[in-house]
């Protein structure tokens, strides 16, 4: 169901952890919140779940203000980063815990629990103990447990943070599909732009306790509006626009496809490092005029210390901000 937050402030002593947050997430939407650690992402989720006291502001779920409703009556599910599975219960007991608290009769909740385990691909695991599960299986158990009581809103706090890189995107796709299958409204917190993009319809970038940019991933990518947001979503090459086009002003981002090493290129720099990744090479080239390091992809790596010429396609430039910073 929908979530509307207005003028939300969370303080800790004299420090302001969240300052004047306003956010609305539509019913059924998959929303992502991205930002560096310490930005207040987890605190925001905890405030929505009713675990962290708020100083002022309103939090409305499906139009009902829940700011003064205790956590256990909010119907907001929160999946913790370390999953927080109950170690003394079996997988199935974990999953049906919320139904038990809601007073669902034993027979019914076991049936519902098994359905959910089936949905996350753990049909055979009901009797197992959480500690005997792999990281991915624990993640799926936690997801099933969060979804079991059919919460109005599902919050996921870095749900893949402690998993192997190779497993992440498989589980991300599964998580997304599962949330879609039950028609949940969800908020996904991460520091990884790739995860956020792969998960959400819409996202927010967070910094120092404030939401600095809200929008669709492609919108934000093409129009970051600040250097911080540009770097957050993964733009590597930020240069003053004037470096590429004499008539332009402000700060620009050059996407990797917009920059190639070419003998007749108009620009030049010294290669400082060459790394191999994704079947090609990334060269870090120091450009003396603007004193920035540009990352340039190539298939024929130059040697370190060599001077290379390169060309930038002005059409690909993304204007980040009007100021050069």
């Amino acid at each position, binding site marked *: 169901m929908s979530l509307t937050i207005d003028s939300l402030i969370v303080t800790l002593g004299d420090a302001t952890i969240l300052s004047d947050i306003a956010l609305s997430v539509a019913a059924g939407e998959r929303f992502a919140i991205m930002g560096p650690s310490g930005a207040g992402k987890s605190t925001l989720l905890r405030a929505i779940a009713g675990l962290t006291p708020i100083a002022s502001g309103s939090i409305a779920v499906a139009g009902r203000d829940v700011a003064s409703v205790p956590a*256990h009556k909010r119907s907001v599910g929160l999946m913790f980063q370390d999953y927080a599975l109950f170690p003394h219960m079996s997988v199935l007991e974990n999953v049906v*815990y919320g139904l038990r608290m809601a007073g669902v009769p034993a027979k019914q909740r076991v049936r519902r629990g098994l359905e959910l385990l089936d949905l996350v691909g753990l049909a055979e695991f009901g009797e197992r103990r959480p500690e005997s599960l792999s990281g991915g299986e624990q993640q799926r158990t936690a997801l099933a447990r969060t979804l079991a009581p059919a919460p109005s809103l599902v919050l996921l706090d870095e749900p893949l943070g402690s998993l192997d890189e190779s497993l992440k995107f498989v589980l991300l796709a599964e998580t997304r599909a599962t949330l879609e299958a039950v028609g949940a409204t969800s908020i996904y917190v991460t520091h990884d732009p790739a995860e956020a993009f792969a998960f959400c319809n819409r996202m927010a970038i967070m910094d120092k306790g404030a939401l600095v940019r809200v929008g669709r991933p492609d919108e934000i990518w093409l129009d970051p509006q600040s250097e911080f947001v540009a770097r957050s979503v993964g733009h590597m090459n930020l240069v003053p626009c004037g470096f590429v086009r004499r008539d332009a002003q402000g700060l620009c981002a050059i996407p990797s496809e917009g920059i190639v090493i070419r003998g007749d290129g108009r620009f030049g720099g010294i290669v400082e490092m060459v790394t191999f990744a994704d079947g090609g090479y990334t060269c870090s080239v120091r450009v003396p005029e603007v004193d920035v390091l540009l990352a340039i992809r190539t298939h024929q790596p130059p040697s370190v210390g060599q001077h290379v010429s390169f060309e930038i396609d002005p059409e690909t430039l993304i204007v980040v901000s009007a100021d050069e910073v």
Partner: protein
Amino acid sequence: MDRNRSLIDRSPFGRIGTAAFVAVPIVFLAYFFLYPVVMITLRGLSVDGEFGLAVVRDVLEDPTLQGVALFTLWQATLSTMLTMLIGLPAAWVFARFDFRGKSAMRAATLVPFVLPTLVVATAFLTLIGPRGVTGVDLTGTLAIILIAHVFYNFAIVVRGVGSYWERINPALEDAARSLGASRWQVFRTVTLPLLKPVLASTSALIFLFSFTSFGVVLLLGDLRHTTIEVEIWRQTTAFLRLDVASTLAVLQLLGVGVILLLYSRYQRRTTVQFSHTASPAPRPQTTGEKWAVWTILSCSALLVLLPLGMLMGRSLVGPDGGWGLANYLNLFDLPTRSATFVAPIEAIRNSLMFAVAASLLALFIGFLASAGLSYTTPRVSRSFDIFVMLPLGTSAVTIGFGFLVALGWPIDIRTSIVLIPIAHALVAIPFVVRTTSPSLGSVQHTLREVAATLGATPARAWWTIDLRLVSRSIAVAAAFAFAISMGEFGATSFISRPDSPTMPIAIFRLLGRPGSAPFGAAIAMSVILMFVTGFAIFAIDSLRASRVGEL
């Protein structure tokens, strides 16, 4: 994340509920522990109702009592050093190696520690006493007291130091080796400094137990080789010098206070968390390692099993010298005291009843105290912790003596039978707290939070999460309390009534009677007591499979 304040309280019972948790143990300990101790102190420091230090001066200037005090310190020092020396190699083996039967052997090392002092003393009597099978009589020497203390406290070193050692990451030692340190240098420069706090706190604990040793010294020592603890008992029961006894108790309390302070100081440092979660230790690899492990284990096994095996074997040798169950059959009709005839077998029934009552009481008070400790602010918790732990340091004799001195007010319950389970509970409460409070405190807060987001009220979250997670440690605490009550002798020796002796009291009385029939019956009774407490210990150890509590 720590910096997040949580709306979900650690205590599900609000401020008032938590305050009640703290209040009940405080009231209990104040009346049954603090008040008697204060009364003893007042008595020790007054002459004819007036404040005066005359008795204190007399005691301090009495050469015999000076000798007792000196011997108490001397034997405690030697006992501590010897136990550490003998226990450390075994601690190393248990910490660093895996071998067949490891968990059974680890459980076996705990048996002496929880064995009633009377059983330990009787075991050594059958081995190196006047009727001992070796023919060597060491009673009344320093040596036999030291041997018994080493036997008794060996487990503390093996388990306490061993489990701490286990948590020190072996990679640290490997790193030192790779930096060019020899095995000995690694031990001296890496392992030993890391072990320092646990070595210090364990030493303090062993010193404390030896300092206040009662049953062992009472039976194996003599008038010169005796401790302050035994002297308090002698002054009260033999000479009726309550003033001298009180003064001695006060002096002993001072000593105990100093030791406890040192202990808690080092104990706090041992709570440093090592990031290393004990990985399965390897089996001994080289021939040298195999020899070392084998030798140390056999010596430890001999130390633990020889006296107990001897006790069991000797119990089957009847008064007429023939093999059989005569000693056990004698338990049914030998009177422990001629005036009021009670068959020794009745003591078993008494002990079981007292132990059940004492365990329930200790669990109730101790668990409330644990909850109080876990749910109050750190500052309140720290002072409360010291308060609850006080009975651990106070000698059992002082507790029993204090009951006699103080509990005539407001109603006279000094001759009531309820005193026995209460005294036993007092001795057991610190163990209950030490076993249950770490597991209550270690329940992850996120578990309560996630329960809340799943719709659990604070009370239900506590009931379904916290209580379930600590249920195992509650069972361990119950077994501990049971074993302690079964074997308690010091306090009971003051307050038990002639017609309702406990097993240790019955053993003591039987040992004090002439003839080989009572001696045999005492051994038989000791064996039974050993098996009952031993059973409790194995219950503890099998429950502890997943490591609960600090003990």
